[in-house]
């Protein structure tokens, strides 16, 4: 009866991001240890997650890709003590938070460092650790 569909396999291996067409340049950059985001040529707003048309204004403009400096601060965080499945257990406890990038957009990401060192507003810098599934993370500065 149970249909877990595409979610069925992650218990035995780290999940791959379900990449959308809009985000292909983002993931290509991640493989080269670079962090990209989009900006609207009409309203100048920083756009994330990636889009094919800016949703923040009525211009209907095609966003342009920019490289982020990868610097930001912790907006919120949580230390995961009970992970979603067995594959994560050896990694726990690990911290996941919302990071506000200096270009004024937010990423939901892992923040590397000791749980007791985490605090709102602390500065962080993007990192690209060598892992089975390449993902941008952040490190306390």
């Amino acid at each position: 009866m149970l249909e877990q569909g595409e979610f069925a396999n992650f218990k035995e291996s780290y999940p791959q991001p379900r990449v959308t067409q809009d985000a292909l340049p983002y993931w290509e950059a991640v493989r080269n240890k670079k962090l990209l985001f989009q900006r609207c040529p009409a309203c100048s707003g920083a756009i994330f997650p990636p889009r094919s048309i800016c949703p923040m204004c009525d211009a209907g403009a095609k966003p342009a890709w920019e490289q982020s400096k990868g610097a930001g601060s912790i907006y919120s965080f949580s230390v995961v003590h009970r992970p979603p499945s067995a594959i994560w257990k050896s990694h726990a406890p690990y911290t996941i938070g919302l990071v506000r990038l200096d270009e004024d957009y937010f990423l939901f990401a892992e923040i590397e460092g000791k749980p007791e060192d985490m605090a709102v507003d602390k500065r962080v810098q993007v990192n690209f650790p060598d892992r089975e599934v390449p993902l941008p993370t952040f490190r306390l500065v």
Partner: protein
Amino acid sequence: MKKPDRSLGRVAAIVGMGDAYADEQNVKDPLQLANEATWGAIRDAGIKKDDIDILLTGRAPWADRRPQWNNIFASYLQLPVRMTTELTFHGAGVNAMIGQAALAVAAGVADYVLCVQADAVQLFIDATAVGAATDACPQFEFPYGPTIPTIYAQLACRYMHEFDVTEEDFAEVAVQRQEWAVHHPKAAKRKHGLITVEDVMKSPYISSPLRRWMCAVWGPGGTAGAFIVTSVERAARAKNPIYIHGFGTCTTHEYLCERINLRKSRIPLGPLPALTTTGAAYAAKEAYEMADMQPQDMQLAALAGNFSHTVLVQLEDLGFAPKGKAMDLMRSGRMRPGGDFPVDTNGGWMGFGQPGISVAADSLVETIRQLRGNPLGLKAGNNPKVAMAYSAGGMLACHSAVILGTEKS
């Protein structure tokens, strides 16, 4: 934004309600639960199955995720209908159904609308694993290994940071939910008995700052709620009608990474970017306006507090406390057993538990049972005549509120 016609708060009533329960000793799947609740509602309404013109369900149960579950259930009932659909409002679907049913009745396209929600997560699936995989963004969140508590904890972190709320405050919320839950025969946490703030603070972190006792549990095994909505004219012939005074819904996003990057919204969410005001405020405002009532007119409320901090945020967004001040209301004792404003009288989502997406149906069942004076657990001490049932779904995403009462307005 177009406002709903206020007369919609005077057109429809719930005339039938049925509930069903399962556990490890008495295993039932969502179809069986929905069936049992539906027949209970049909009998309660005093109608025949074939009087039903429209069938609404919530999204497919987690324990039976077949697409078109509403259609599967319609054929299980051998119930050809004019119209059937799922309201995929996450868990908030059931309250939204009541609103849509009232609209159908008002438009004259249905005499009777059946609204059903069932689930049985604990009996059939690994909810911790599936939950995160369902509700986290599969591209920008889930690869980092969050659970549902991890996603909700981002709001908990901000709520503590912005309003000087502490983990001990969160513990007090759990203590008060448990005070009701211990009296409810179906509550998942009933077996643990009463708890103290110290007990909560000694429980391990699930995802900080949320400790085990600050989280809803996946249980009881399974539940269902079924509700039959008809016109106020037909309701006059029913034996125990509950009038729909107002309803309001809204949805603001799907994934948290989208919500935090939202910079403007025609649904008021306070200054953005922020997380601490949710769409609950707008859904409730619509319901109050339709009912021509104020928050202080509510004599009972059922929230959708799956974690301590969401209880507090909802009390504020629904207008029962100023922003950041819900702990003052919590400490006043008004919402405890014996208080003059009973809230979450089945123990709420934290104490009663989350059997799956039917959790909001459980809150609606509890609200109707209290208004009719026949709760399964502890009776509200103030004989409530008007109540709000609020439901949330997804990661702070979907919101629905209904105002119900025993008297025709």
